[in-house]
């Protein structure tokens, strides 16, 4: 278990959750079934979920409840989702949100 996981909380007890595997940017990772993508990644110390489409600046989870849209990632077969709200399932393939070219201004993708 990663060091950021809280195993013994004095007041909150959570039921057993099944360990499952998923991938992020092609890397295979373990997570707990039903937890959101963002939490599963943070447990592995992964904070960068997205690059700003225009500037490419790094972005991560900000509000954790679906309001801010900062944690948008791409899930194979589902398209763009909010990593804070989308539960991971076995075999899920997740890719970070990418910087995009801007064909109107002529700025190219990195």
């Amino acid at each position, binding site marked *: 278990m990663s060091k950021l996981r809280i195993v013994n909380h004095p007041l909150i007890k959570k039921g057993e959750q099944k360990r499952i595997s998923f991938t992020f940017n092609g890397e295979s990772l373990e997570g707990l079934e039903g937890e959101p993508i963002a939490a599963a990644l943070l447990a592995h110390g992964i904070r960068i979920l997205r690059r700003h489409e225009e500037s490419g600046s790094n*972005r991560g989870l*900000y509000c954790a409840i*679906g*309001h*801010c*849209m900062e944690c*948008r990632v791409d899930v194979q077969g589902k398209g763009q989702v909010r990593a804070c709200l989308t539960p991971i399932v076995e075999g899920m393939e997740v890719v970070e949100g990418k910087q995009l070219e801007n064909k109107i201004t002529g700025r190219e993708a990195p």
Partner: protein
Amino acid sequence: MSNSIIVCRCEEVTVENLEDAYHTGAITSRQIKMKTRATMGACQGRVCRNLVDLWMGNKNPLASKGVEQLSYRPPVRPITFGELAGEE
């Protein structure tokens, strides 16, 4: 306050952008929005709408009075064209 602070995260609008817009005549939240794209990004203004109003109010207490508020229109959550169209 540093002028490089980002106000609108989605559209990367900085304090400097607000200042520039203000000094070229954008003196209400709505004009600031139109000129800088602040509040027009992916969060639909949920994060920075308050900030823009607050900044505007501090900047120009008179101008922000009795002026049309930024409006709310559907969709208030990002749905896809497909979802809106009603396709599965």
